[in-house]
């Protein structure tokens, strides 16, 4: 990113507020955090999708057994 990333430090004791440019190490950590975040979100989404797919599969099988869609949906909640 082109802008200079900064850190605002708020000192509760003195009330002083200081803007400090982030170090290369801090910026690298933020990027690592972003990647970790995106990986975690992708994993969570995949798990949610898998659960929903299994639920829909169960509903379809219940309907084959003769349940109405409403009945199958109620059981699969």
């Amino acid at each position, binding site marked *: *990113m082109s*802008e200079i990333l900064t850190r605002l430090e708020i000192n*509760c004791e003195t009330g002083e507020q200081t803007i400090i440019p982030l170090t290369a190490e801090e910026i690298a950590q933020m990027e690592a955090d*972003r990647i970790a975040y*995106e990986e975690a*979100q992708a994993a969570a989404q995949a798990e949610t999708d898998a659960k929903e797919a299994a639920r829909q599969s169960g509903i379809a099988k219940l309907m084959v057994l003769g349940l109405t869609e409403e009945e199958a949906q109620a059981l699969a909640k």
Partner: protein
Amino acid sequence: MANTYTLISSTTLASANGTVTISSIPSTYSDLIIAISARMGSGSGTSPYAVNITINGDGASNYSRTPLFTETGVVYSLRTANAANVLVEKALAGPDQTANSFSNIQVYLPGYTSSSSKPFFISAGNSHALAQNDGRNGIHACLWRNSATISSITFATAGNTMAAGSSFYVYGIKNS
């Protein structure tokens, strides 16, 4: 039951910042509450909407978190243990969401001067999404495994900034 709230610090960002550190927090209260109204800055990198929280600059694997999280149509929970920070996902309104809408985040830190591990609680939400047409809410039970008094807390975005206008209020609470 807490009966006194004292405003320790209040700050509204005049410009976007990637990280905000609240330091030199006095140890003269029983509990702390940090009330945040924040939004991601625009046009800077990707938009993970997350806030990372670290305490006393501790980047070691001393944090754990159990959130209950919702966004439109989805409810889920998970467990994160031995993490290097507390990552509060989807806590910030993004640049692709309704202009000038800010998320609300509250961090409650009881017994922050205790010599034991510090449990703390976060609630976060925004319901102003536009592009995603959804709302997001999360409650997060957290733990910092450290015996030190909490004297500083850092809020960082994951590769982005918090927008100008974001505000941070720190309150101390005394039980008597």
